[in-house]
């Protein structure tokens, strides 16, 4: 056993994989964006950390380490589907394990920004093709033939002329002695057998019989359960508490104060540790806590929006982008448009409330949970708990939804503190009310849009955004504009609009905020694409033709033509309202058309939604469609059903009784079309969300002449 083998052995032991195998990973050398493929056992020699993605043992068993979280978006399917394609194995013979949080090993694991596929696919394809080539080379050497005479198929290498065949398992030992190839030939899109096909997801059967293990389902020996009564004012403190009644509840073991970090601020609460979830809940109910809210601002929704409006009327803000100069044009224009759009605060409301199992063992910690960002969590716990990073093990379970909330670090930190104090492994479960009222929330953002048209052409557009900046909570500078001011805006508009500017008016409240599916595009898209519609109407143009006029880029043209054709835009009939919107985020562009009409009682009814996505290269057509469908339904809820209000510094909506989610009977038919091209891969999990709401409100305008500029609105009351 040579010392160079240590890191690989360590890895193999940690994952329970067999040691005799071909293990291939990749690393990035220095600043270069290109990856280098490397064998597991060579990693130490090169002085780089092992990237173990593919592991083929002597039984031919292929294990793929899935480095991203699975929260419904299909990473569990997409990564193996990519790897199986180039490796030439059957998808069902591939074993998938989730990687543990470790930045060095996997690169960024944060499942956010719709980046699972687009951030990794080129390297994964190259890696799989390298392993395949090594196996072919090993077989060719055994048969004393040239590699050109051999090919790989379904986990075997085959000699074309003789039909000789060897299983990968028989070849891994020889293959592992070869150098990883420098250059590999990747397949052409036309030759794909798995990629682009709507293959069934591997995780589906686990989710139809109750066996998928979500964070909340995790049990470890000796585990206790905890609930925390947190200061409802988000960042207030505990003045005192009386735990005498709580400690009398059968099953309650311990009660203590806990302070977790919410960004750089503290949130205090009282933890009740018990031998069952129910006992912890009952113990928590029996607590008497006196809160200390000194210095807390008693924010209210009404005031927040009043202030934002005043800011938009009086300030120019920090310039984020300026092309030409809209100001002098707008100053001269008599009939300029000048409107305000308002979007609400939202909860993530993942179906699986926050939870985390933590086991503090003194000088090491292991945690399990629904975690979107295991590498961040590892670093965070290491730092906050004062434990070496290599002694912090972060295990990802399935996530019952994430949407950005489970990329945050409060609940994992809190669980570690509680396990430490309890001296036992503990599962901390948040109730729905905890999950909904504690934040961080999607920020509500207001916009002012000014614009002018002349002879059917846009002469100037000026957008100002005012809302909380997530970056500020993460420590970014306050004298620079929000870096997401343009998120959602299709950048090719800049090709054809001469005078256009965007600015950000910084706005602070004590409400903690965090990414929410599609982040600022979820609110920007509504403002920007509603205003495009208003400009089209002012110009006397058809809204879809108007977008085509300003988005001459070929991909945008094709996309708009497709949605026009699918929706029958040109053949629309009287008493039908049609609305269109197009947005870009995470490198994918989505256009949607919504059709509305009035039902017998005069209420607005959404008849149909057509969505066309151009996400470039993609893996699984069915996953793409499912993600766009889900995004549209999430947008529908945020536009027409729910909102988090604040009153006296408290979130008002606490559960689904008042934070009303769309139900099956409210869902219109949705048709999704995917553009087929070979452009670079864009995101899939989020870009379908932003265009829905403006397409809907534009359709309502088309039908009724009523322009909706404030969300959410009640469809029944338009």
């Amino acid at each position, binding site marked *: 056993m040579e010392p160079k083998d240590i890191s690989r052995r360590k890895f193999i032991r940690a994952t329970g994989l067999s040691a005799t195998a071909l293990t291939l990973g990749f690393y990035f050398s220095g600043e270069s964006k290109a990856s280098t493929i490397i064998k597991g056992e060579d990693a130490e020699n090169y002085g780089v950390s092992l990237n173990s993605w593919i592991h083929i043992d002597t039984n031919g068993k292929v294990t793929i380490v899935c480095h991203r979280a699975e*929260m*419904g978006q299909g990473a569990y399917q997409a990564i193996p589907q990519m790897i199986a394609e180039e490796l030439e194995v059957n998808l069902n013979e591939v074993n998938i394990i989730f990687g543990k949080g470790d930045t060095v090993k996997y690169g960024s694991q944060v499942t956010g920004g719709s980046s699972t596929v687009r951030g990794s696919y080129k390297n994964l394809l190259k890696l799989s093709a390298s392993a395949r080539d090594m196996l072919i080379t090993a077989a060719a050497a055994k048969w004393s033939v040239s590699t050109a005479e051999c090919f790989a198929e379904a986990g075997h290498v085959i000699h074309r002329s003789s039909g000789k065949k060897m299983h990968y398992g028989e070849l891994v030992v020889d293959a592992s002695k070869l150098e990883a190839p420098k250059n590999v030939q990747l397949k052409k899109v036309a030759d794909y057998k798995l990629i682009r096909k709507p293959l069934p997801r591997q995780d589906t*059967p686990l989710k139809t019989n109750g066996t998928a293990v979500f964070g909340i389902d995790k049990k470890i020996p000796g585990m206790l359960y905890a609930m925390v009564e947190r200061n409802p004012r988000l960042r207030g403190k505990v003045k005192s508490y009386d735990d005498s009644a709580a400690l009398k509840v059968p099953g309650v073991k311990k009660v203590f104060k806990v302070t977790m970090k919410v960004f750089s601020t503290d949130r205090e609460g009282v933890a009740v540790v018990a031998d*069952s979830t129910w006992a912890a809940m009952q113990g928590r109910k029996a607590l008497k806590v006196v809160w200390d809210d000194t210095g807390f601002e008693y924010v209210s929704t009404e005031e927040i929006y009043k202030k934002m409006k005043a800011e938009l009327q009086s300030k120019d803000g920090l310039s984020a982008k300026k092309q030409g100069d809209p100001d002098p044009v707008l100053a001269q224009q008599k009939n300029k448009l000048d409107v305000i759009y308002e979007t609400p605060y939202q909860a993530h409301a993942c179906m699986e409330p926050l939870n985390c199992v933590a086991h503090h063992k003194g000088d090491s910690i292991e945690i399990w949970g629904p975690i979107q960002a295991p590498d961040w969590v590892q670093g965070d716990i290491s730092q906050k708990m004062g434990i070496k990073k290599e002694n912090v093990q972060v295990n990802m379970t399935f996530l*019952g939804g994430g949407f950005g909330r489970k990329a945050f670090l409060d609940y994992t930190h809190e669980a570690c503190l509680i396990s430490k104090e309890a001296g036992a492994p503990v599962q901390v479960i948040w109730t*729905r009310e905890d999950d909904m009222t504690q934040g961080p929330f999607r920020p509500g953002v207001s916009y002012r849009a000014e614009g002018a048209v002349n002879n059917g052409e846009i002469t100037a557009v000026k957008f100002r955004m005012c809302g909380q900046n997530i970056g500020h909570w993460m420590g970014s500078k306050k004298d620079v504009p929000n870096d997401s001011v343009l998120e959602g805006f299709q950048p090719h508009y800049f090709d054809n609009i001469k005078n256009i500017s965007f600015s950000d008016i910084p706005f602070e409240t004590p409400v903690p905020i965090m990414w929410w599916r599609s982040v600022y595009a979820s609110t920007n898209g509504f403002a920007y694409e509603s205003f495009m519609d208003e400009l089209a109407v002012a110009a006397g143009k058809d809204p879809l033709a108007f977008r085509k006029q300003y988005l001459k880029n070929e991909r945008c043209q094709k996309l708009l033509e497709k949605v026009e054709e699918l929706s029958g835009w040109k053949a629309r009939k009287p008493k039908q309202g049609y609305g269109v919107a197009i947005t870009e985020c995470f490198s994918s562009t989505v256009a949607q058309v919504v059709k509305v009409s009035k039902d017998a009682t005069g209420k607005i009814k959404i008849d149909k939604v057509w969505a066309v996505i151009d996400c470039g290269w993609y893996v699984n057509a069915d996953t793409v469609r499912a993600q766009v469908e889900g995004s549209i339904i*999430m947008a529908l809820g945020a536009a027409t059903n729910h909102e988090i209000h604040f009153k006296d510094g408290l979130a008002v909506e606490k559960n*689904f009784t008042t934070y009303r*989610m769309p139900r*099956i009977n409210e869902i219109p038919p949705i048709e999704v079309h995917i553009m087929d091209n070979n452009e670079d891969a864009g995101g899939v999990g989020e870009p379908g969300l932003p265009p829905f709401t403006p397409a809907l409100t534009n359709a309502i305008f088309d039908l009724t002449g009523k322009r909706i500029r404030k969300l959410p609105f009640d469809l029944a009351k338009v």
Partner: protein
Amino acid sequence: MATFKLHVNGKEKQVDVDPATPVLWVLRDHLELTGTKYGCGVAACGACTVHLDGVPVRSCQLPVAAIGIKKITTIEGLSDNNSHPVQAAWIEEQVPQCGYCQSGQIMAAVALLQKKTSPTDADIDAAMQGHICRCGTYPRIREAIKKASKKMSVKG
């Protein structure tokens, strides 16, 4: 604390718990049947749905003391191999995304199809509207119920 004998998925189980404990937590914490999910705790989401003598109920609202001799069926009890026609239809239609709500959705769909072998869209709306899916799998749930209905009528 009190001892309760429960019939769960065809087996007899015994638990020693506070009589007020909802069946949801008895299943999850004491019987290690974690397929039934906690979503809201107030009968507003349907994630915790199980069958009590074949009738769908919200297990978060049901104290264990109220069960008596009634038989509980959870998602784990539908079949041992995903072969229940509703499960099969769910897989064919690729319904789940995150999957968290799906045990409840499936239990509701099974109960609906037991009552109405060929449900209309309105029947589906009525039976399923107590069930939230944050991932938005509703269109597929509708299709899967229709598909399961066909499977069941061929069989029956």
